[in-house]
């Protein structure tokens, strides 16, 4: 006989322990949001580069902006206003809107223009060339181009700054109206490059907020609208969606669970106490994450509600199997062998997640296994001691007897499983669509129309493709630039031949030191230049002393040290170059972005001819190879998990015949889930496979409990009651996930919900051997 004091003591100690755990968890756990945690880990060098590029590459930090909803002049003003406001914001490296930006080259770096511009490759600053240039300038002054030239003329009569600006603007710029870029639909276009990495939702979120604030602070923003697109924007979107979905699923699951338990047991104390093992499990899981990883991914915690769907079973079994005249402790001891088997099999199923090697899934495995074990143990040892002595016998639930009789009378033809097997195999063979989902992009939760809009803006702005990269390899940064220069002519040839629209090589921004020195050597001395200049401008109406700043600049340029990537990095365009030159352990990599690739084979042939110094990286192919390689590993892990489950069953039941009664429905149900998914055209991804194992782990319990020979009909009814409550709550949790807009959650939710349903039906049909009569 337990005393009230003993009950209260246990309860209070338990609650205190939970509170301590909660505090520890909150203090030590950091939430991470890098979406790459849910991608298979990279193996080959290409795959590693792929993962780096997705997060940090040249294209990943670009935000595409479009302003619409006002007359053209206003839009142009807004474009200029926004660009100006963002120039001062440290969160943005660069903002381009087509307006000629003389500040593209730092004031201090201006004399370097003679080393950076390709003019000196083909001309010398002699009297003939200067004469021709100055004549052009005179004519330009009389032409519409005068307004552009007047500020530059004295310092830069050969217009090197303009040549550089043209070289550095996107290879295929959009149409220009009123001095800024406009799309074919009449929107003002801008490109903004953020300082934060593309896959960092916090940094991207801050940048996008700053952008929108700056836009709305503009004086004539009025009715105009700002559209933002790009990888960073999608990251922020996905993050917000995930969080709101997780909250929603969590809230609805919890409410549904509470209602269900109230209906099943009609006892509020029972409900509250039944929640304790689950809450303990949850907190233990979080503590395990904090200990093992130090941080948890937001999506992992959202998935964590799968724990609820699994761990609820233990207290429910205990509650349903109590019978009059029996202590809760005795009931639980009777149940414990099967419960222990159930815990073990669920843990094995989750080990499959762990074997996948995917960071986020490993976290989920640790969280869930820790949670399951703690929930199970607290159901065995703590819950019985605190349950109220009075309870309703589940066997007496109205309608349950009728349900049991109905299920007993359901025909169980021996040929049914074989028929199902044959039909399944036929459907699987003829199923539409590919079997495997290899495209990582199919896992993205971004709505289709936003992706289309992004593609359209990308096309208009001439922003680089996110699919292809040309990778150059060399011992150091300067060697990369030299290699880049040597490959430029062939690539230009490919562009002219139409194999691709444009290529942006690192050497486009910064020539190698050798090239800079060669150009420097061609610069004339001050005296010689002065004479050439005087000669050239003899018949021209320029003022005598007009070009003194030009003479100064050339003289300065003659003694400059060639510009290195490190120094160039400090200029406004430095970040662009920095993202194209990457240091690796065994050398440096140059990354050249490609736009509008039409003939990948021609490119591949070109790279083959460089003897390995240049490589074409197809990010899509690399990601698919990643998925395929990983699938092999997962399939092996799953196979092992299923074998282990079978072994567990045999060991627990100690009889081949009984084991068969349990394993047969389990296998058939797994097959049926596959059949239903394939028949609806779903291609299987990593997550479907993992979810199948989880469903098998859960379904095993139903078969185990139905298979168990029971003493009397009341016990059979209790078994049915417990199983029904478990099934309904599992369907609730996983069914909600199946409705999620996140493909990963949807895959897992649908598979497990279907699995639970099929396992339940087939267990009833195949595991029970007929019941004792009442």
């Amino acid at each position, binding site marked *: 006989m337990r005393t009230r004091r003993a009950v209260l003591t246990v309860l209070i100690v338990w609650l205190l322990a939970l509170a301590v755990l909660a505090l520890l968890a909150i203090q030590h756990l950091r939430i991470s949001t890098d979406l790459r945690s849910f991608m298979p880990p990279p193996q080959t060098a290409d795959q590693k580069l792929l993962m780096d590029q997705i997060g940090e590459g040249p294209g990943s930090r670009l935000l595409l902006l479009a302003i619409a909803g006002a007359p053209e*002049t206003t839009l142009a003003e807004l474009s200029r206003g926004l660009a100006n406001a963002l120039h001062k914001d440290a969160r943005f490296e660069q903002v381009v809107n087509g307006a000629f930006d003389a500040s593209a080259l730092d004031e201090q770096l201006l004399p370097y223009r003679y080393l950076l511009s390709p003019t000196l490759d083909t001309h010398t600053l002699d009297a003939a060339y200067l004469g021709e240039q100055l*004549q*052009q300038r*005179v*004519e330009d*002054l*009389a*032409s*519409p*181009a*005068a*307004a*552009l030239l*007047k500020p530059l*003329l*004295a310092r830069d009569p050969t217009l090197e700054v303009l040549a550089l600006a043209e070289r550095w603007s996107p290879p295929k710029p959009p*149409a*220009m*109206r*009123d*001095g800024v870029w406009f799309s074919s639909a009449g929107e003002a276009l801008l490109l903004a490059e953020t300082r934060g990495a593309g896959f960092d939702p916090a940094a991207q979120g801050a940048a996008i907020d700053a952008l929108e604030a700056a836009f709305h602070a503009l004086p004539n923003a009025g009715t105009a609208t700002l559209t933002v697109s790009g990888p960073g924007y999608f990251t922020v979107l996905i993050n917000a969606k995930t969080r709101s979905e997780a909250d929603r699923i969590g809230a609805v699951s919890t409410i549904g669970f509470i209602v269900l338990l109230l209906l099943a047991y009609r006892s509020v104390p029972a409900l509250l106490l039944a929640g304790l093992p689950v809450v303990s499990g949850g907190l233990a899981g979080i503590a395990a994450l904090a200990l093992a990883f130090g941080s948890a991914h937001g999506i992992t915690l959202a998935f964590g509600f799968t724990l609820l769907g699994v761990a609820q079973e233990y207290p429910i079994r205990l509650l349903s199997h109590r019978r009059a005249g029996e202590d809760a402790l005795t009931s639980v001891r009777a149940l414990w062998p099967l419960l222990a088997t159930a815990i073990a099999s669920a843990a094995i199923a989750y080990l499959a997640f762990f074997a996948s090697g995917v960071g986020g899934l490993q976290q989920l495995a640790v969280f869930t296994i820790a949670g399951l074990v703690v929930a199970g143990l607290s159901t065995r040892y703590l819950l019985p001691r605190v349950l109220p002595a009075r309870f309703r016998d589940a066997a007496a639930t109205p309608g349950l007897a009728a349900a049991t009789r109905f299920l007993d009378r359901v025909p169980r033809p021996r040929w049914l499983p074989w028929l199902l097997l044959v039909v399944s195999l036929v459907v699987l063979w003829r199923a539409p669509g590919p079997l495997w989902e290899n495209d990582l992009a199919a896992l993205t939760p971004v709505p289709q129309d936003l992706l289309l809009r992004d593609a359209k803006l990308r096309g208009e702005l001439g922003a680089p493709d996110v699919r292809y990269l040309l990778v150059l390899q060399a011992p150091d940064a300067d060697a990369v630039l030299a290699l880049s220069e040597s490959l430029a002519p062939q690539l230009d040839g490919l562009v002219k031949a139409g194999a691709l629209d444009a290529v942006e090589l690192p050497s486009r921004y910064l020539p190698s030191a050798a090239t800079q020195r060669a150009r420097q050597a061609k610069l004339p001395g001050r005296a010689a230049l002065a004479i050439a200049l005087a000669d050239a401008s003899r018949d021209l*109406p*320029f*003022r*005598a002393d*007009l070009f003194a700043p030009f003479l100064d600049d050339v003289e300065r340029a003659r003694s400059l040290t060639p510009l290195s990537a490190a120094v160039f990095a400090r200029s406004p365009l430095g970040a662009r170059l920095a993202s194209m030159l990457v240091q690796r352990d065994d050398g440096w990599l140059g990354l050249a972005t490609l736009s509008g690739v039409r003939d990948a084979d021609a490119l591949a042939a070109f790279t083959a001819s460089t003897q390995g110094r240049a490589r074409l990286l197809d990010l899509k192919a690399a990601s698919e190879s990643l998925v395929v390689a990983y699938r092999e590993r997962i399939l092996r892990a799953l196979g092992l998990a299923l074998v282990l489950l079978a072994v567990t069953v045999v060991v627990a039941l100690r009889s081949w015949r009984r084991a068969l009664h349990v394993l047969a429905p389990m296998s058939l149900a797994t097959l049926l889930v596959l059949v239903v998914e394939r028949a609806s055209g779903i291609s299987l991804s990593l997550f479907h496979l993992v979810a199948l194992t989880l469903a098998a782990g859960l379904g095993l319990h139903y078969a185990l409990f139905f298979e168990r020979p029971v003493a009397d009909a009341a016990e059979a009814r209790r078994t049915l009651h417990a199983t029904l409550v478990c099934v309904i709550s599992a369907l609730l949790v996983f069914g909600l996930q199946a409705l999620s807009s996140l493909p990963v959650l949807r895959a897992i939710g649908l598979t497990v919900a279907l699995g639970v349903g099929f396992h339940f039906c087939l267990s009833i049909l195949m595991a029970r051997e007929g019941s004792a009569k009442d």
Partner: protein
Amino acid sequence: MLDRPLILHGELEYSGPGKLGKRVDMPYKEQTTITDSSASVQRGDRPPRTFSLAQAPELEGFLRGFSALLAGDAATLQRDFDLSASGSAAHWQLQLKPRDERLARRITAIEVDGAQNTPRCFRTHEADGDLGILLVDTLADTKLTTRPSPAQLDALCRGVAP
């Protein structure tokens, strides 16, 4: 910037609203064709360079004023410019100040001098202090010195003796 004015000779062709052709014969050969909103400049043997009029508001402003003037479209003139007139039918002067602020940033005023039905002198005062003068019709053949003074040009335009 220059120590003497640039003087060009050529032919201006007005083929309707928004369509202007300017051919420079002396001292170099250049052909500028303006249609609607883009201008194309071709010099000597070089390939033509095209750019949108939005990048050259002075040209656009001039074109609009010129078109409206020749078409006798007082309404458009009134809409785009602030007008003030002086003189008589024999010698009149029209001053156009652009209303569009984008244009006003580049051009302070355009002065048109003419006699009877014909405009003969267009003076574009640019915001940065430069002055562009277009002498057409009977004034086109006037012999100018290499450095005509502003007073001389003014007198020429007004049709009075210097």
